[in-house]
């Protein structure tokens, strides 16, 4: 099955082409069906690949070369796929969650006139994402990397008539581009120093002493790749696009901005684990950036009222956790969290989509409340999601998050303390969201109240499936205190393994678990207590600061966007038109002016003319006799 791995991206591509070319004439439901079936087919192939990789007969990574992509001089970059544990796992996550979200979308988007186009974009996204994870070299990853950025752009701006939405789309693309530039530079450095972009060659040469490559070069490469990751995975300083990206349809947020695309950065660093192992200083930076992002996003999420914005900041925060894990060397753990997060965050987003669907497009939780009575399935699944993300034992999020905390503790106590605070905040804002949405009394308009209903089966089935996954997904990676046999880590071990020098005793681990569970439960309780009878008033002080997202967008605007615009305007108006072009035109003007002056010599007077001649004679004689010699 692994030999035909190219089928995995091929199906979405075909789906994209069919929907993309015939989008105008295709019936909506057919378009949806084609899109969904394409991903389902991919999922099935992915399953086959996964099990083949899992089987004992599979030895090492398998490279499937399609054709020569760029070949010049002594550089050969093939268009090739690499099948190994990591890529096959991501295949499963992408196609699996993807199938569910496609299914969900068939219902969610049914009233939208651009539904076929939507599915085309979605298929294209899945195709790009699959390229990203399947590529056997950085260039193919980069193709997918930029491809998912493009699809994200297209889907955020899906309702293109709204300028705000298209602005958000543009912002996302540009922010991603900044990161992509980092990736590109890293790639060029690799190519320049190692002459290859293929993972296996590159990693093979990493320790090669015959290549005289300074240590700093490794650091630069690692840093550049990480910059790429901060763009795609919404880390400080490039995170601000992700909350804005909620302008797109909700399933898109679920698929792209929660479950798959944003985890590309984690995938990339995990993929390059061999490199990062050699650059501890960069890993340290990653840990700090990840943690800061986790905290910053969590603080903002506390004071948001838009249901999707809360989830968006929560995603940023969770991604921060993953980077923290990477930073402390717990690659497997990070990937584990990617997987569990994909389940519960997709679940939460889809749940919020269901809520928004029921509310007729309303997203402000101040106008919700008491929805649980009307939509039981949504409420239940959403609750599972909240529990999972908060880290209640027994659910998937608990296992993955706890592993991160443990790894962090092993690395540094300070980082652990901060991470724990972030985790506490997570529990608080998630349950604030849950309580405000589903409990209490309905605060919306009468019309909305009348309209409230449970979503159709096509939407609830994915919710249920994802809820189940959110519960059981964690059991593949039980912590060592519970089970010595970590299935997940074992599966990934040929490609990725945790890189940590510290080992915690079982006692400590139990203690940490107990601590985190305790604080989380306390936070949940507080959230319930504070929000069961909500009062919304103009916030002040720090609350206002949080509500306005620390004014990050405004700061960026003032520090970067405005100056660039100002400089550009100045360049355009003054330097280009009057400066450079002014000089060019000035030459012409000078000639004309000179012509006018010289013309005046032509007085029409013979006397003047002879005078000029005589002066000419005098001057030339002087030059000739007294100046040259």
């Amino acid at each position, binding site marked *: 099955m692994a030999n035909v791995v190219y089928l995995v991206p091929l199906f979405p591509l075909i789906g994209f082409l069919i929907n993309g070319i015939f989008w105008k004439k295709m019936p909506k439901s057919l378009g949806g069906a084609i899109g969904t079936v394409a991903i389902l087919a991919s999922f099935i192939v992915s399953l086959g690949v996964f099990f083949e990789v899992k089987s004992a007969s599979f030895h090492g990574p398998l490279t499937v070369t399609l054709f020569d992509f760029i070949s010049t001089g002594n550089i050969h970059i093939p268009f090739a796929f690499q099948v190994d544990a990591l890529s096959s796992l991501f295949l499963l996550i992408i196609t699996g969650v993807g199938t569910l979200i496609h299914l969900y979308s068939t219902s969610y988007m049914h009233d939208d006139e651009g539904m076929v186009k939507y599915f085309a974009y979605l298929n294209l996204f899945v195709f790009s994402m699959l390229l990203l994870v399947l590529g056997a070299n950085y260039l193919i990853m980069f193709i997918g990397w930029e491809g998912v950025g493009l699809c994200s752009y297209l889907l955020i701006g899906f309702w293109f008539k709204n300028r705000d939405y298209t602005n958000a789309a543009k912002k996302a693309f540009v922010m991603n581009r900044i990161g992509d530039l980092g990736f590109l530079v890293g790639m060029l450095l690799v190519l320049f120093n190692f002459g290859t972009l293929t993972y296996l060659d590159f990693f093979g040469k990493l320790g090669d002493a015959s290549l005289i490559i300074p240590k700093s070069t490794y650091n630069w490469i690692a840093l550049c790749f990480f910059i790429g990751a901060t763009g795609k995975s919404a880390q400080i300083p490039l995170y601000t696009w992700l909350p804005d990206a909620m302008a797109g349809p909700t399933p898109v947020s679920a698929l792209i901005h929660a479950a798959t695309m944003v985890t590309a950065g984690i995938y990339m660093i995990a993929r390059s684990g061999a490199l990062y192992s050699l650059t501890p200083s960069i890993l340290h930076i990653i840990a700090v950036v990840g943690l800061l992002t986790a905290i910053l996003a969590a603080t903002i999420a506390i004071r948001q009222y838009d249901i999707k914005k809360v989830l968006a900041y929560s995603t940023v925060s969770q991604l921060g956790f993953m980077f923290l894990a990477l930073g402390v060397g717990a690659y497997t753990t990070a990937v584990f969290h990617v997987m569990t997060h994909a389940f519960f965050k997709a679940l939460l987003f889809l749940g919020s989509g269901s809520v928004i669907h029921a509310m007729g497009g309303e997203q402000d939780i101040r106008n919700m409340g008491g929805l649980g009575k009307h939509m039981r399935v949504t409420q239940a699944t959403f609750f599972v999601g909240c529990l999972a993300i908060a880290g209640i034992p027994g659910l998937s999020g608990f296992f993955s998050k706890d592993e991160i905390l443990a790894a962090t503790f092993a690395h540094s106590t300070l980082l652990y303390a901060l991470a724990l605070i972030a985790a506490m905040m997570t529990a608080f804002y998630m349950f604030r969201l849950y309580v405000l949405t589903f409990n209490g009394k309905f605060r919306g308009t009468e019309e909305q109240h009348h309209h409230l209903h449970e979503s159709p089966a096509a939407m609830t089935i994915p919710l249920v499936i994802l809820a189940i996954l959110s519960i059981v997904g964690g059991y593949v990676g039980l912590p060592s205190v519970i089970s010595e046999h970590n299935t997940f880590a074992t599966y990934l071990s040929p490609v990725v393994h945790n890189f940590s020098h510290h080992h915690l005793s079982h006692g400590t681990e139990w203690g940490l678990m107990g601590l985190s569970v305790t604080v989380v439960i306390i936070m949940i309780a507080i959230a319930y207590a504070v929000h069961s009878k909500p009062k919304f008033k103009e916030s002040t002080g720090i609350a206002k600061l949080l509500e306005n997202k620390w004014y990050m967008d405004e700061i960026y605007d003032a520090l970067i966007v405005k100056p660039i615009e100002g400089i550009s305007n100045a360049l355009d108006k003054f330097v280009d038109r009057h400066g450079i072009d002014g000089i060019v035109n000035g030459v*012409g003007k000078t*000639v*004309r002016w*000179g*012509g*006018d002056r*010289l*013309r005046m*010599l*032509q007085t*029409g007077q*013979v006397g*003047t*003319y*002879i005078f*000029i*001649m005589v*002066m*000419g*004679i005098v*001057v*030339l*004689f002087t*030059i*000739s*006799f007294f100046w*040259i010699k």
Partner: protein
Amino acid sequence: MKAIIATTVFGIVMMFTGILVNNKRSVAAIAAVLFAVLLGINFFDLAAASPNATDTLVFNKMLRIEHYSVWFNTVMTGCTLLYVLLMSKEIQRVGSHVAEYFALIFFILCGLYILATYNNLLMMFIGIEILSIPQYVLAGSDRKNLKSAEASLKYFLMGSFTTGILLMGIALLFGAARSFNVMEIAAMLHTDALNPLALAGILFIMLAFAFKVSAAPMHTWTPDVYDGSPTPFTAYMSTVVKAGAFFAFLRLFQVSFNGISEHWTLILAIITAATLLVGNVTAVFQQSVKRMLAYSSIAQAGFMLFAVLAVNKFAWQGIIIYAMAYSVATIGLFSVLVKLKDFTYDGFNGLARTEPLLAFTASIFLFSLAGIPLTGGFMAKYYVLLAVVQQGHLMWLVIFALLMAAISIYYYFRVIIAMYFKPGTPEIASPVTAGDRTLLIITCALVILLGVAPQLFLNRI
């Protein structure tokens, strides 16, 4: 030699024709035939002179007939024939003495032939005078027009003044070289111990020639005289006559002063640069096309001076091909100009719509003057540039000249812009006949032929 005799005889014949024939058109027709015969005689001379033949010295070494000069004579006679054919009608309209005008043109050619073959400063002097005096007359030939008289008087006064300069130069040179024979002078002058008299003489002669070829600082007469003279004669004065002066200039400096070029090259380079500057920059501001062409002729003189500057084989070919390309294009342009009533740029507005052929040929002539490739003008410019670049040490001048050539685009293309891109209906002074069209097409073809296949001529020169 036959040509000199023939042109003198034809001149006298024309004088008698003036008495015997009253019809202007018949006079013009006879003149055209005589010019054609003259061209034939030149070809006859040409056949006798091959590139490898030794030079012929005649009349006590007064004349030296060699390959280049015969070629030059032939080419210039050809241009004159073309000129006479294109301008015949206009010449007839200038005044009542049509036969005399043609006689003067024959005499000018006589002077030109002498200038192309002189081997003695006396012959050069007489040649220049024979070339000049008819011009003074032609400039003033439009009796009805005050401007013509003014041009004539200005030209005459300044021309005589320059004669004084020239003669002083010759006298001083004689004081140093003790001979009037061009080749003997060359033998008498030595770079190492150059008599100041010789240098002063060379400078005076150079300046006198600068006047004749309208180079700065002796150019000041040019715009006024060219502007004031009857247009058909301006066309002749600014082309063939000027080329003749140039050839004489080149001849003297190549033959006599070649060995001491280091003493005068810089001065001539300064003159060249000043000429290019004045000609091009001043032309930019002109409103009248005729006057613009006067300045353009100063500018073109700057380029022709390159040939004088370059003391090598390319220079000879360069001056011939430049003279030909420049003369043909300018004569062509003047023949378009005389068809119009209004000589300002605005007078050309919309010509492309009413007279596409005139506009097209005028464009080709302008391209040639501007030095656009595949026209004769390009090859000419190219050739003189090649000649001077080969000298090596004058690259600054070459670059300066090219910048000036770029300026020249401005005023040449203004005509094209007026003809093609501006609305308007130009007033036509005289009807454009089929004969005119044919001649224009032939002229145009000549310009292009010179640019596309210059080796047809170059191989033989």
